[in-house]
């Protein structure tokens, strides 16, 4: 039996991720929703109505379906691929194509691709076409089966961000299958971890999943760096950013001297606009003659308040000085923070979130 007595309530207008080891019945579960697989027993209710109440093809046209490798129709142009379901619903050719063009823009596809055929597109573009095609008839439900697993990590991240953005605008009810726990944690509003046989191991929001896995199976599935990953859910807003150890490249000798004992072993040098250039020991800086080539790299900065503690910690770990650089939205240095300070913030955040959870149990 592929899926045994799975009971799941999928919340409206949010992304529910099904995740689990290969062969645990994720695809089967998804296919039961649009009746490509009929359950031998039990029912599937959509808005409280049994899915078997309406003709199967009507049901399917009301659900977008996206699969790995997009499953595009190789014999149809991109625009006609996207217009498929509107055409099935009896829309006119012009109206369907107009709608298809609109969707190409929404998923970030260049309009020049409209008349191309699938083989002329990259994997990432094809996947976008797959998403656009699923959205074409504005279905309330979207079923996605490992849609991004065949593209490289950079493109995948782009597609995930795009999906989140589209979801913000459209508010669909999305069921998303993946075997990548990082992807599940990133995009899921709720995450269902399945074990072999389609049995539910845990159904929880991602932060809760990471902080309190239900059992050893889930814990194992979440992997060794569960703690680090969990930091993604803590904002960097609470960090104490120091602005004292920052000097501009045109600073005077007094300014440099004043900041030398600001509490940091290094000073961050910025350009005249305030954008970080690199680190230097105070003693090596001579006013008016700061050589940019001599500065230590400042690594990748994090956006203060916007990015998580995970990003901040990552910056600090990668920085040659052990200090992370925080920037504002425009890329100007907003402050610097040490690994130690980040560590304290992490401890504080854990106490805040784990504390009440423990009381509840």
């Amino acid at each position: 039996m592929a899926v045994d007595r799975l009971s799941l309530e999928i919340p409206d207008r949010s992304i529910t991720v099904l995740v689990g080891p290969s062969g645990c019945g994720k695809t089967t579960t998804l296919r039961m929703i649009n009746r490509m697989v009929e359950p031998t027993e039990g029912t599937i209710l959509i808005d409280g109505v049994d899915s078997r109440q309406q003709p199967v093809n009507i049901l399917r046209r009301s659900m977008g379906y996206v699969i790995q490798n997009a499953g595009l129709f190789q014999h149809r142009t991109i625009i006609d691929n996207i217009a498929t379901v509107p055409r099935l619903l009896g829309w006119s050719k012009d109206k369907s194509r107009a709608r298809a063009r609109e969707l190409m823009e929404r998923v970030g596809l260049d309009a020049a691709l409209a008349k191309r055929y699938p083989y002329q597109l990259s994997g990432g573009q094809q996947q976008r076409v797959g998403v656009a095609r699923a959205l074409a008839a504005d279905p309330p439900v979207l079923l996605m089966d490992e849609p991004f697993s065949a593209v490289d990590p950079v493109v995948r991240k782009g597609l995930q961000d795009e999906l989140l953005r589209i979801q913000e605008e459209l508010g669909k009810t999305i069921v998303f299958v993946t075997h990548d726990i990082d992807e599940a944690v990133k995009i899921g509003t709720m995450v269902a971890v399945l074990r072999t046989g389609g049995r539910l191991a845990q159904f929880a929001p991602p932060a809760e999943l990471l902080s309190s896995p239900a059992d050893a199976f889930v814990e194992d599935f979440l992997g060794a760096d569960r703690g680090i990953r969990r930091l993604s859910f803590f904002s960097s807003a609470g960090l104490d950013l120091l602005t004292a150890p920052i000097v501009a490249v045109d600073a005077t000798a007094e300014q440099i001297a004043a900041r030398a004992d600001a509490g940091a072993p290094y000073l961050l040098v910025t350009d005249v606009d305030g954008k970080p250039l690199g680190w230097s020991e105070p003693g090596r800086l001579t006013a008016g003659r700061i050589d940019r080539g001599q500065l230590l790299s400042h690594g990748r900065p994090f956006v203060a308040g916007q990015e998580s503690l995970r990003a901040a910690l990552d910056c600090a770990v990668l920085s040659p000085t052990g200090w992370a650089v925080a920037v504002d939205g425009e890329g100007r240095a907003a402050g610097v923070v040490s690994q130690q300070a980040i560590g304290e913030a992490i401890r504080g955040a854990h106490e805040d979130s784990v504390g009440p959870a423990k009381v509840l149990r």
Partner: protein
Amino acid sequence: MSGFFDIPSDLQHSWWGLIGLHLREALLPVLAGLLLALPLGQLCVRVRWLYAPVLWVTTVLYAIPSLAFFVVLIDYTGQTELTVMIPLTVYSLVVLVPAIVDAVRSVPQETLAAATAMGFGPVRRYLQVQLPIAVPAIIAGLRVATVSSISLVSVGTLIGNQGALGNLLHDATIYNRPELAWNAVITMAVLAMLADAVLVLVRVLLTPWMPSGAGRRTTPRTAGTRPVPAEPALKDAAR
């Protein structure tokens, strides 16, 4: 000594007339074979266990010499073109049925799943998704069937001047005019090449969606273009 294009009067046709006749006798059976093979092939795809027996029957029919067909048919259809075209239709099935079955089966599973998930009914899915994607492989089969049919028409000579260009071979011996045999062989070869070229052109026109240069070769993305084995065409030499 008469010229290369002087056709003996017993054939009642000019050279061009023989060409027209030859094409009709060769191509109509392929068309009829295609119309039979499409539903038969689809049936074999749907009902898996049927494929092996159907293939076996077409092969056995192919093994029956045309003369045997004529002996049976001549009582019903007389010494007509039809008597020649019926066995040719049957012979074309040995190529077309497997070609169509392979073509339809080679449509990627995920494409079919996507179509089903979008709410295509079975008929619409066959006509709008499976068949168009199968076109290159079906045409590959048609090319073999067409070329073999063009050479097979000659057997019509056996029932009295129904072999079109093939009749020239017979006349070459009775009138002792070897150039007629050359004429027949060369004309048939040219016709075969032209018909083949036309089919390639049709394929190119029907499949703007295929990567150019992929041609008849199977590439990972267009798995629907497997070439059909050409042995049946080679076996024609025996007839």
